[in-house]
């Protein structure tokens, strides 16, 4: 399969190729986030009742994202793409700090540390890809305004162990949730835009 049969004349990746790669990457990022949450939960959170406290405390909660199939199908694809971009951007900063703060944890297990670093890198890569997809799908300029700041760094550095562990638990719980949303929305968009809802 020659990459550019007619030389460099409009030689570019198809939208289908871009979506294929974005979905494979979002699937992988969520797989890692889920494993990291489970490992942390098993190792540090048993019996601390964190789930009851981790309610409505994600820094991206203010972004109104679709919560069921109907809402996901009704939202215009450009709005959903920009929403995905907004969630991804909102995770850039916390992921940088997560990787460094996990390193400081008492006998931080290698598997959690490695995943934190890998997720940070792959999240940036997915953001690059999504900007490319949005640029392709959207005629105008890529909107940059959807973003929610994260102010959770101090709580990751608290002296009180229980509070600090809860801060980590909550961040990993939110990362698992948001990366699952992104993966799910991308799979719906791919079926809608590429396969005419006939995946």
């Amino acid at each position, binding site marked *: 399969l020659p990459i550019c049969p007619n030389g460099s004349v409009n030689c570019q990746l198809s939208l289908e190729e871009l979506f294929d790669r974005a979905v494979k990457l979002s*699937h992988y990022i*969520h*797989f890692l986030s*889920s494993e990291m949450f489970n490992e942390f939960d098993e190792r540090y959170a048993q019996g601390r009742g964190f*789930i*009851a406290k*981790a*309610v*409505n405390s994600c820094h991206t*909660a203010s972004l109104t*994202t679709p*919560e*069921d*199939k*109907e809402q*996901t*199908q009704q939202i215009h694809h450009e709005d959903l793409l920009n929403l995905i971009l907004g969630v991804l951007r909102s995770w850039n900063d916390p992921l940088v700090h997560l990787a460094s703060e996990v390193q400081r944890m008492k006998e931080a297990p290698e598997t959690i540390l490695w995943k934190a670093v890998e997720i940070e890198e792959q999240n940036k890569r997915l953001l690059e890809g999504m900007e490319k997809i949005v640029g392709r799908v959207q005629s105008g300029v890529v909107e940059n305004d959807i973003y929610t700041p994260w102010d959770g760094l101090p709580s990751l550095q608290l002296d009180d162990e229980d509070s600090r562990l809860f801060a980590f638990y909550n961040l990993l719980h939110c990362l698992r*949730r948001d990366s*699952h*949303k992104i*993966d*799910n929305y991308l*799979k*719906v*968009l*791919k*079926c*809608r835009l590429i396969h005419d*809802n*006939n*995946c």
Partner: protein
Amino acid sequence: LPPEKPTIIKCRSPEKETFTCWWKPASDGGLSTNHTLLYSKEGEEKVHECPDYKTAGPNSCYFDKKHTSFWTIYNITVRATNEMGSNVSDPHYVDVTYIVQPDPPVNITLELKKSIKRKPYLVLTWSPPPLADVRSGWLTLEYELRLKPEEGEEWETIFVGQQTQYKMFSLNPGKRYIVQIHCKPDHHGLWSEWSPEMYIEIPTDFRVKD
């Protein structure tokens, strides 16, 4: 005496669009007891009552599409009340994302084929359970199949990802095999039941010549 504490047994969603919870009624000590399921959703103060006690049978609550949200934690309790008083179950925290258990795959076909070099291989094909909307991409299913020689003890299990077709190569001529398939949402949820057993016989004349 007031009733004992009821317990919530489980909650399940068959297609990632609706879900149902079941509870074990409190022992009622002979007095007539009724149960009320109450829930609140993450980020909301409001407490709601079960929208539908009927559809899923006794001691159950059915949440239709309108009452089902994902990526949000439901805090669910059941209260048992009789004329002497009432008692409330421990809270049950549920995010519907993690309780999806689909029905088994359907339309399973087994077909024996011969490769170019006369090697027999088996082609299995199947379809997702009807309730599951995989076409829109809202739900993505993964499949796993298992097979064993009819008189064998041990199942061989093979994870096949999102494909709905699989080619089995290492088959023993003259043997009768049992094959089953089940499925699960990608990432989270529970494996479906296994599909009904299917049988396939590998003819002996498929023996490979030197």
